[in-house]
């Protein structure tokens, strides 16, 4: 016991010495998948949060020096709980920007609550994360898959499409999207002619796509992430399946376009949050990100991680690194501008102003639907 105390004192001392320049150092955690199949998005998020911290530290007006503690949840619940315990039980950490994988976010909410660590979820989209509990510690900047699919289904049925095929991966992400899209598309009068689940590391989809082709859908809705999204779109072409490709936030990445080349043209996708490039600070974020020369792009959820980190640091500037005060302050967040749109937390900590942005690929770029030649009628979606 004594040794532990000595160690702690020693640690604290070294800590103070390191930060002795003038400002106190405040540590905040970033948790996301840095290894395995979802690592691309995790690394994008990590870089974005890192960027937020760097920019703040470069700002002479900030009260504190910030340090980002990066932890890998491997997208696995037990590893997630392990690192969540590490972050939450460490009293030197004031708050956290946590989790991309819904299943991990679900597993860790109890841990954050137990230790009273304020966290902002930066990517996980399962509604239950904020709504299945009353924990004051848990917040989320991104919208849920409910909002996204509502907008998506409404939009796509308004374009006159009637027959839908759904292909989703069998992770929590894909299955959730499948559930909500099916619900909403039926509500708006669409017909689901095929609904198939596929493995998240599957490579060959020709059997599923041939089956879908036989059902003659007008739209193929895909619930899943970039890697298999690329494969499915490419293999549709192999089989001559000419349905409109309609995706979720998981494919809004440069890699989707890079992986497909010209085949990406005309693909639709929807993402929670406002369009970073149009919002105040969004362009700034993208420029600064580029300037840092990170080896990976920010991906779809990088802006959320950035926004969450900025929001946390803004709050800490006001309250100091006191977890309880941070939680109390976060509860008051209303109509706050960010690079992903306005943020207002409801009493579950969920951002209730979920701007959903519609994207379409045009000439090798994700373009806002409203500004695209597809909206103006110059170009046509598949089958129109």
């Amino acid at each position, binding site marked *: 016991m004594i040794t532990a105390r000595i160690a702690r004192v020693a640690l604290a001392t070294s800590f103070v010495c390191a930060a002795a320049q003038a400002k106190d150092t405040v540590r905040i955690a970033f948790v996301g998948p840095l*290894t395995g*199949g979802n*690592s*691309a998005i995790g*690394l994008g998020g990590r870089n974005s949060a890192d960027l937020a911290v760097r920019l703040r530290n470069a700002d002479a007006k900030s009260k504190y020096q910030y340090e980002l503690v990066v932890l890998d949840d491997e997208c696995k619940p037990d590893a997630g709980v392990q690192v969540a315990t590490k972050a939450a039980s460490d009293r030197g950490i004031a708050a956290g920007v946590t989790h991309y994988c819904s299943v991990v976010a679900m597993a860790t909410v109890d841990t954050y609550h137990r230790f009273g660590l304020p966290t902002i979820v930066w990517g996980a989209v399962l509604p239950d994360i904020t709504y299945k509990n009353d924990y004051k510690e848990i917040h989320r900047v991104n919208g849920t898959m409910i909002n996204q699919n509502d907008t998506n289904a409404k939009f796509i049925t308004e374009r006159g499409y009637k027959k839908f095929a759904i292909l989703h991966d*069998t992770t929590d992400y894909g299955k959730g999207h499948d559930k909500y899209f099916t619900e909403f598309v039926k509500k708006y009068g669409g017909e689901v002619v095929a609904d*198939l*689940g*596929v*493995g998240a*590391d*599957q*490579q*060959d989809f*020709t*059997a*599923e796509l*041939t*089956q879908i*082709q*036989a059902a003659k859908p007008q739209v193929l809705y895909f619930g899943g992430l*970039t*890697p298999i999204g*690329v*494969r499915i779109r*490419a*293999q549709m072409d*192999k*089989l*001559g399946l000419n349905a409109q490709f309609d995706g979720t936030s998981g494919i809004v*990445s440069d*890699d989707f376009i*890079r*992986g*497909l*080349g010209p*085949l990406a043209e005309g693909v639709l996708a929807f993402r929670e949050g406002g369009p970073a490039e149009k919002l105040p600070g969004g362009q700034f974020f993208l420029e600064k990100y580029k300037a840092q020369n990170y*080896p*990976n*792009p920010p991906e779809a959820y990088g802006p959320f991680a950035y926004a969450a980190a900025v929001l946390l640091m803004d709050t800490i500037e006001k309250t100091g690194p006191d977890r309880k005060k941070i939680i109390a302050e976060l509860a008051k967040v209303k109509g706050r501008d960010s690079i992903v749109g306005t943020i207002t937390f409801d009493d579950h900590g969920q951002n209730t102003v979920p701007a959903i942005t519609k994207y379409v690929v045009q000439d090798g770029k994700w373009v806002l639907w409203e500004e695209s030649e597809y909206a103006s009628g110059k170009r046509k979606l598949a089958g129109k």
Partner: protein
Amino acid sequence: MTLALFAQYVMNGAMLGMMYALVAVGFTLFFGVLDVIQFSHGDVLAAGAFLALGTWVALTKLGVVSPVLLLAAVVVVSALGTALLGAVFARTLVLPLKGAPQLNVLLVTLMMGTVLREAIRLFYPGGSQPQLFPALLPTTAYGVGGFHLRLDNAILLMAGALLIAATHFFITRTRIGLAIRAVAQDEETARTMGIDFRRIVLVTFGIGSALAAVAGVMDGLYYNEIFFGMGLLLGVIGFAAAIIGGLGNLYGAILGGFLFAALQTIGAVALPFASAYKDVFAFAVVIAIMAARPTGLIGERASERV
């Protein structure tokens, strides 16, 4: 099901089976000469595919545009580079472990696979996301009813068949092939016949790895996309195919490859449950086959040497 649709499924399955068979042949060759499973074989395939892509990028930057030239260069560089990689693995990891428990070899090669996979993910530019693989073959398409045949697919299928036939010819008709088979039969006797055992092992690993590289390139040309984790499942399936057929048996590996592809296609299409169960179905059948034929479909009979 219409005939056209059926033909489409057969075509899809054949393409898949071809790739599985090429991977399985590698497993079975390695087992033949050294009685080991080279579990990083799937990741060697991925390395081959990325090497091919890297070559393409480099050549395009240098201004080469002729698809024929590009294709030839890509295949040759990838096959040679990967053959070298396979031989280096054999030299540094597999041969030193000769005589060690099978389990050690298995784990070492599995870990080597992890190293390769992670290295591609971390060090190939943008390697954590899928990469576009160029279409170097003509993509003319012929549609008959629901059947959609593309020229590149047909070419790939034929190239695969030729490659398997060539491997077969090489193993059964050439001097080195005979030496490989002699070592596979009985290492001691082969040594006394004056065959350089180490050399044959290295050559075999080189050939098997080159086959994997070609399979990787075919994979890239077929799907137009490659991914750092592509070798993981392909490796497991290739191993399963080699085992179902019976380790050490060339025909068994080919049979196993096509059988597994057939199982997956049937699981996705013809069975009354959701297609996501197709791998559950395929692996359950694999387990059942192992229960019924413990040494594979055309493996050696379970003989006890007393």
